[in-house]
């Protein structure tokens, strides 16, 4: 036999990483450019460090104070996760009740909307007054901010079931429970996850707002200390970590979404 057909191996991790990098090339390039400009301009204009530190100063700060930052990141993360968890546990059943009961909808909706329009910054001091400096007020603020998008998206998702689908399973003899479990709920999942992705970001905001009002630890607390001490690098470092935490949590939700509703991704990734 002459030359055998070339064997094609699956792309190595290295080639995959390179491919991803080049794909994201433009985005990465812009970010790097922004950092470089920031560094150069700040130095050139002799901006004092307590007004605007350079990226290099911030990175050094993160490195040297990593323990302190991680400690407080974990503190805030706990508030976020508990508040978000509460939103899910309360919000989704609430949404189901709204979909299935006209009366409930008429009572709950106006309450929810008025609660949503009150800035949580205004509510936080009241919560602190009632619950003190512990973790509870922060969890509650995180809950109050994140639960509205979760409820709304769940309601919309559940209402998106087509009439014919309901008719179909009814003709097969499905009662309300089967209709809910086999049709409405799975149909609503993409929408629910949309709500969860928004909600987790809101929960981060809520936790920090709560910390600004009353806290003994957390990234929001650290920001206050940094302001009092005029330690602007620490201020920026806290913001960087807050942002990283938000991105990480969001991606975790997105990953769970991929696990739970793989078909949704297939549809959105389908090319003609």
């Amino acid at each position, binding site marked *: 036999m002459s030359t055998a057909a070339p064997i094609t191996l699956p792309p190595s991790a290295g080639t995959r990483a390179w491919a991803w990098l080049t794909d994201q090339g433009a985005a990465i390039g812009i970010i790097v450019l922004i950092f470089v400009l920031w560094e150069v301009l700040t130095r050139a204009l002799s901006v004092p460090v307590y007004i605007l530190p350079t990226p290099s100063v911030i990175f050094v700060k993160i490195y040297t104070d990593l323990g302190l930052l991680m400690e407080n990141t974990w503190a805030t993360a706990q508030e976020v996760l508990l508040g978000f968890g509460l939103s899910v546990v309360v919000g989704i059943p609430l949404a189901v009740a709204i979909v299935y009961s006209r009366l409930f909808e008429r009572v709950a909706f106006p309450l929810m909307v008025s609660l949503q329009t009150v800035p949580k910054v205004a509510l936080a001091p009241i919560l602190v007054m009632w619950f003190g400096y512990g973790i509870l007020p922060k969890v509650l603020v995180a809950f109050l901010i994140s639960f509205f998008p979760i409820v709304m998206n769940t309601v919309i998702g559940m209402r998106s079931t*087509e009439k*014919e*689908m309901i*008719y*179909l*399973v*009814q*003709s*097969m*003899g*499905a009662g309300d429970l*089967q209709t809910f479990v*086999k*049709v409405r709920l*799975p*149909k609503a*999942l993409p929408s629910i996850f949309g709500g969860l992705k928004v909600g987790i970001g809101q929960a981060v905001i809520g936790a920090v707002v709560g910390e600004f009002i009353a806290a003994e630890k957390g990234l929001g607390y650290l920001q206050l200390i940094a302001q009092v001490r005029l330690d602007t690098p620490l201020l920026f470092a806290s913001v960087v970590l807050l942002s990283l935490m938000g991105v990480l949590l969001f991606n975790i939700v997105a990953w769970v979404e991929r696990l739970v*509703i793989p*078909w*949704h991704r*297939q*549809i959105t990734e*389908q090319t003609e």
Partner: protein
Amino acid sequence: MSGTSEAVAPSRADVPVEVSGVTKYYRTAKSGTVHALDEVSMSFKPGEFVSIVGPSGCGKSTLMMLISGLIPVSSGTIRVAGKEVRGPVREAGIVFQRDVLLDWRSVLSNVMLPIEIKGLNPAAYLRKARELLHSVGLAEFEEKYPGELSGGMRQRVSICRALVQQPGLLLMDEPFGALDALTREQMNLDVQRMWLRDRNTVLFITHSIEEAVFLSDRVAVMSARPGTITEVLNIDLARPRGAGTRSDRKFVEYIERIRRHFFAQGILSES
């Protein structure tokens, strides 16, 4: 068939349907009270293939929904398999114009849905489900998701779903309306083949006079709203009907007759 399959719940493969003096009103937010059907009466013999043709909004879909038991009559009675219809008819399999497959389930799982909901033993029906998919050429697509299928393929799956429970009554509401002409012709042949095998009673609703005549034993012509049956034609053409049938003289005559009827009613007009 092999002897291993234990008794698949033997439902009658054909049921009679009696519609007597059925009138239907319903209320909408926009148009107030709509008088959809007026004193409709008709009988379907067991195993008969009947089509209903009529203009948009004449109430033919409503009639089908009433027969299925999913909505109630305003007056009159409907009997399926001798029993008065008071709720969703269990002997009925339904195919809508939109395929309404569940995106999150595989093709096979979708077909098995009625079995699951009725709480029947899946093992007994799995073979039937696979056979049905095979008979419409979708055997390799068992594990695919609806999102990966074309419109025609999805509609075929929904037909399999309707048939897996061996319904005595098959209700189809413009099932091929959303498909292109070629696929539609193929689907007509497929439906005929399946019906010839199962011989359930079929109520087929369509806009297409040609399709109605091709498939049916009888064609009922419905007037504009409020809908009522204005004429019923016996279609006397040999089965199985195929490509040759469409150029048959009698075929063309039947179509002409129905078309003239619509002209007379003002539903079609040349001026």
